[in-house]
């Protein structure tokens, strides 16, 4: 059970090697004894994540999870829930892709859409069913500022995030009366492996800083959080810029 100040006793990370997801798990584990289930593909990076969380005192197990294999998702979640209630679930998997390549390569475009939109919907629906059964739970969905106004520069990625963002906001509304909360997190540029080699934008942040904001937002059961916070203002300006002008802006 999660407590009054937002300390969970268990956490499921879908996308078990996500740097932001792992930073969230580490923060919680430092506060209180924590049982973590990492859902991801077997890999050296996943083993590293297990070792890393154990080193901060967490009890860690893993379940095999392939985002593209949506038919397997209900069984994956059954396995993740088999050791008891899950207090917080972080939906953290996703692909960035090469922005120019991905819209011109049919197979890659479809894969990106399936990993970033179809799979989050698939786990979201299966997750909601299990959380309703246990009568509680908090979902953290890692979206992106890129979904707020989709830009030409990375519209494939942006469009998938726009879709998953809308789905999780809606899921939160649907679950409102049931003691289950959904927090949609919109980070800006985060310096991680996913963005390695890219030029950081203004307001660039780190996985650890995003994790701090996530933990605070979960405690307050917030529905939507921008991280860092000024993104909310920046994006609400962007959203209203007419297309002919927006197109000419240098990003």
């Amino acid at each position: 059970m999660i407590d009054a100040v937002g300390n969970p006793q268990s956490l499921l990370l879908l996308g078990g090697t996500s740097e932001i997801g792992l930073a969230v798990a580490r923060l919680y584990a430092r506060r209180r004894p924590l049982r973590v289930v990492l859902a991801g593909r077997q890999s050296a990076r996943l083993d590293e994540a297990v070792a890393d969380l154990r080193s901060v005192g967490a009890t860690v197990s893993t379940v095999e999870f392939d985002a593209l294999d949506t038919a397997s998702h209900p069984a994956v979640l059954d396995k993740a829930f088999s050791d008891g209630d899950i207090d917080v679930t972080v939906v953290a998997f996703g692909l960035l892709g090469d922005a120019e390549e991905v819209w011109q390569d049919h197979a890659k475009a479809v894969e990106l859409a399936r990993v970033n939109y179809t799979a989050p919907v698939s786990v979201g629906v299966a997750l909601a069913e299990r959380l309703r059964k246990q009568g509680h739970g908090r979902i953290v969905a890692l979206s992106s500022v890129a979904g707020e106004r989709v830009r030409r520069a990375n519209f494939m990625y942006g469009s998938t995030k726009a879709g998953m963002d809308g789905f999780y906001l809606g899921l939160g509304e649907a679950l409102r009366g049931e003691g289950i909360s959904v927090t949609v997190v919109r980070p800006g540029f985060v310096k991680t492996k996913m963005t390695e080699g890219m030029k950081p934008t203004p307001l660039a942040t780190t996985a650890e800083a995003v994790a701090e904001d996530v933990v605070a937002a979960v405690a307050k059961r917030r529905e939507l959080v921008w991280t860092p916070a000024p993104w909310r203002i920046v994006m609400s300006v962007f959203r209203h810029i007419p297309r002919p002008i927006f197109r000419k802006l240098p990003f």
Partner: protein
Amino acid sequence: MKPEKLTGWGRTAPTSAQVLHTADVREIAAAVRAAGPRGVIARGLGRSYGDPAQNAGGVVIDMTGLSRIHTVDAEAATVDVDAGVSLDTLMRALLPFGLWLPVLPGTRQVTVGGAIGSDIHGKAHHVEGSFGNHVRSLDLLTADGEVTTLTPDGPDADLFWATVGGMGLTGIVLRATLALNHVETAYFLVDTEQIGNLDDLMARQSVGDESYAESVSWFDAVTTGPHLGRGILTRANHARVEDLPARSRGNPLRFEAPQLLTVPDVFPPGMLNKLTGRIFSELWYRKSPTRAGAVQNITQFLHPLDIVGEWNRGYGPHGFLQYQFAVPFGAEDVIRHTVHRAVETGQVSVLNVLKRFGPGNRAPLSFPMPGWTLCLDFPVRKGVHELCEELDELVLRAGGRHYLAKESRATPSVVERGYPRLDEWRKVRASVDPQGVFASDMSRRLSL
């Protein structure tokens, strides 16, 4: 039954459960017999701050339907009452007979069942002990669906005392017989002392409690500097008819306890901040100058917060928590340190209570122990977790413990260390409910 979202009074950590509203004991017994893997818990008026009356994914039984006062024996001063009756209703019914509930907490909006389950205490603890001390017998619906009548010294005394303070986890209290006091009036003769700092407040409170039926102090945990912890010590005895002003003598048992307004659920977070906290504390301190022998009614003296309905909404949507602990006499430093740290860390608490407890009772999970109890309330915000963690350690090292009716954020080990008789209680519970039919969010969170 239908699913409902429930929280405690602190409005934190909501969960949903199937809630059964009924006035029929047979339906309650049937629900207990049919309990699924996530179990059943009884709920009264939801005044516990944390999660003991919630049961995520399971069944919650709303006990307020069981609301009959069966018999009042004015001569023997006892009442036989359903568990879902509130202390407010009960007081109104008893006062015309000149009868008074010996233990009243800071609100009358709690049920008899809840009062037993939390073994609540009030300003009269140093004289009367806690609620369980006045229960002559109780009917307990156990996990097998049967009802047993328990008494404090009967063959099932262990189960009786495990139920007192047992947070509803031994079964469901359906009905109880309570011992009462005789009073002449519904008024108090109150001595108020305005005291400029915490050390003086504690020193003053340490002498003379025995000449009063009721004693408590409020203190200021916001104002810094030399006035840190300044407070108001109020102590009182029940007024006799001749103590009353002439106009009240005609109706000395009049119940003066209006609810003037209900707080709407519109407050944003952060309403209680350093500024508003300081203003409130200043006014609260100023409104009570030192004065002896003032006649006050029930609301003025006992339950000022009951004037306002749903006052917890004022803390905004993120909710708040109460941090209440008891430490033995001799551990006054823990009290001082707690107040200092609350002020230093900038956590704003305005409804602060300090009281000296008398002896505890036989219940293994009863909270009161001889010593001091202190209560602070914090809106949930950054830093509260860290402050409470720090205070936990201090309290436990001094041999203290935390009040489960207020608790909403501790760990299993905090409860184990604070309640050395926890295993004794667990054994009784295991013998009467081996499958763990009675379960709550709190029992899961704290591995009770």
